[in-house]
């Protein structure tokens, strides 16, 4: 009896083994992986290539909760999962593990979204003190570049004497100090470090690696050149250095910032360059002119004329480049009031109009009057001082742009990706995950051979799973980008946790390299 029972078991298992030549695979899913719905669909139907028995079916909803109110039914090749009536808005994950006839388990996951795909927009934590300091140092840099370098240029090329020397020198020192501090603060902000960490190298090196690094270095060089020009005994040397410093102002601004990095760059970078130089020309002249007017200097009138002759085209350049950049950045008039970036631009534009009004007043009313009565300079002094105040307001407003992404960028917020490095004897994969938080994540796969040279792959696949939550592998094919890297875009990762990634690179028809690692997905 025992023998017969045993034999029967053996025979039945052999039958299973030889008869059921099958490897369960998902043939189709309804809704399909990645679907988006207005409201919760009634059910999800999974169809396999053969009869399967459900082993574990899990629904993890958009708020990360494993739901126990789902119904599971199976009929032959189909598994039907009845969904709860109302699922939260966002991306839900359905993970399945089924047993095929031959006892082989097979598993996978599919995603569907209700209302909208869970967004991964990260709201950077606001840190008032650091933000305030960044803003102040930014204003400092502007003062150095515009009042300082611009002032030196005015003294070397337009003006006479050393009117406003203290302000110009002061501006340069404030600017140099601001530039250095700005760099450190940028690093502090970037790495989310406490202020005290400014004494360590980490924030500095990371800040230098951003576009602000070269920008501030150029600014420092420009201000140093201006200082040298100021101290130079030779007029020729002073003029050359001052002109170079002015070019540095434009270059520094064009090297960084939202406007300079906006597409199309052939337009925006030169526009920012010219805009910066024009601002420096104008703002730099204000204090020396006010001082000349206050002293009722004899040379005031000729200097004013020299300044005005160039000022007209400079203002034209200023307005034209400013408008161009505003159009590129805003994309719509509505954005002027609807976004913080737009609001700052509105404030700035209003102040610029006041400034232009004051400039017109000086040019067309006050300066001609001086010709009749050279001693009556007080209205001009008052007007120029008002210009200085307005200009300072503009700089303060513009420094605030550091904290507001332009509408152009609001769609794809810039985030620092998570880097995962997987290295074995045969291969080295570098994976960038951004933003590595719950929501839509993008993956860049940099595939290299063991010695670091590019690995020519024919296909690459990314498979994600979260064993701790029982989420079965979610497979996505990567696309080869023009940059030579493999990309998997917008994988809606619904829950935080330590995810497992497996990357398979097909090298030849018969050879593939598989590397695996874990990585952390943070909360939003």
């Amino acid at each position, binding site marked *: 009896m025992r023998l017969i029972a045993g034999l029967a078991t053996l025979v039945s298992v052999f039958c299973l*083994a030889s008869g059921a030549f099958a490897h369960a695979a998902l*043939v189709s899913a309804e809704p399909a992986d990645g679907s988006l719905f207005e409201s919760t669909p009634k059910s999800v139907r999974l169809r396999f290539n053969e009869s399967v028995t459900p082993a574990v079916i899990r629904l993890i909803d958009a708020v990360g909760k494993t739901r126990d109110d789902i119904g599971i039914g199976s009929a032959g090749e189909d598994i039907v999962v009845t969904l709860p009536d109302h699922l939260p808005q966002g991306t839900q994950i359905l993970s399945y593990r089924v047993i095929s006839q*031959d006892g082989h388990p097979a598993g996978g996951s599919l995603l569907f979204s209700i209302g909208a795909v869970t967004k991964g927009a990260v709201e950077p934590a606001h840190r008032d003190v650091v933000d305030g300091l960044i803003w102040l140092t930014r204003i400092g840099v502007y003062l150095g570049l515009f009042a300082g370098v611009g002032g030196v240029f005015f003294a070397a090329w337009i003006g006479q004497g050393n009117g406003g020397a203290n302000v110009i020198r002061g501006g340069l020192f404030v600017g140099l100090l601001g530039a250095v501090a700005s760099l450190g603060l940028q690093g502090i902000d970037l790495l989310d470090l406490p202020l005290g960490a400014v004494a360590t190298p980490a924030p500095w090196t990371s800040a230098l690696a951003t576009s602000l690094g070269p920008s501030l270095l150029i600014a420092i060089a420009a201000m140093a050149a201006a200082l040298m020009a100021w101290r130079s005994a030779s007029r020729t040397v002073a003029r050359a250095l001052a002109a170079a410093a002015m070019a540095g102002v434009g270059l520094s601004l064009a090297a960084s910032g939202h406007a300079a990095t906006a597409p199309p760059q052939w337009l925006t970078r030169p526009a920012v360059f010219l805009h910066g130089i024009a601002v420096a020309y104008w703002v730099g002249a204000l204090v020396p002119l006010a001082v000349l007017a206050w002293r009722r200097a004899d040379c005031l009138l000729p200097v004013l004329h020299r300044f005005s002759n160039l000022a007209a085209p400079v203002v034209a350049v200023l307005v034209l480049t400013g408008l161009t950049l505003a159009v590129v950045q805003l994309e719509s008039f509505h954005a002027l009031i609807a976004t913080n970036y737009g609001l700052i631009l509105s404030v700035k534009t209003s102040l610029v109009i006041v400034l232009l009004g004051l400039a017109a007043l000086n040019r067309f009313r006050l300066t001609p009057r001086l010709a009749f009565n050279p001693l009556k300079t007080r209205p001009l002094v008052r007007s120029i001082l008002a210009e200085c105040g307005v200009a300072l307001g503009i700089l303060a407003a513009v420094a605030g742009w550091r904290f507001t992404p332009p509408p152009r960028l609001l769609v794809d917020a810039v985030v620092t990706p998570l880097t995962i490095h997987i290295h074995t004897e045969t291969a080295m994969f570098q994976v960038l995950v951004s933003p590595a938080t719950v929501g839509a994540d993008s993956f860049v796969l940099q595939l290299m051979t063991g010695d670091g040279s590019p690995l020519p792959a024919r296909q690459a696949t990314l498979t994600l799973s979260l064993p701790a939550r029982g989420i079965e592998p979610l497979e996505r094919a990567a696309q080869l980008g023009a940059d030579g890297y493999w990309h998997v875009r917008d994988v809606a990762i619904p829950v935080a946790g330590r995810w497992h990634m497996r990357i398979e690179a097909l090298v030849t028809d018969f050879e593939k390299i598989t590397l695996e690692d874990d990585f952390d997905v943070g909360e939003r």
Partner: protein
Amino acid sequence: MSMVGYSLFVAAVAAFAASPAGAHVTLENREAPVGAPYRAVFVVPHGCAGSATIKLRVEIPEGVIAMEPAPKPGWNVDVVKAKYAADYDYQGSKLSEGIKEVVWSGGKLPPHQHDEFTIDTYLTGSLKPDSMLYFPTVQECEQGISRWIDIPAEGGDPHDTGSPAPGVKLMPKR
């Protein structure tokens, strides 16, 4: 032997028998001595996720020579020749090149049927006994491709990988 013990024994035998026979493209003869002829019979158990098989490509590992694919009614068989990594003595002559890939095409194997594809080979004495020898195989279907090309780590369970390559355990020369 108690009833429980006996059942466990049966279950163990059954599990051993069942697991290799399962779901993948496999080799029928799972053990073979080196320095001897070997008939490699590739068993294709099913299509690619429900689609009919229309092509089977087998890569011949180094050290396996003197290939003779068996003709198969309804299928064309093609071979790709290349240089071997080393020279091999075979029946008194030196072989430095030969078949490195065998391709069956032109036929159609419905998704739920299984079939066998045979190659007569010679396993040279250069192969290491007591190790696994793998024949990476690509199964092309009307829709999709299954690549049975995963080679498990030494001593690893072939089921740890998703799509193991068909393999044969090499035995010492007789």
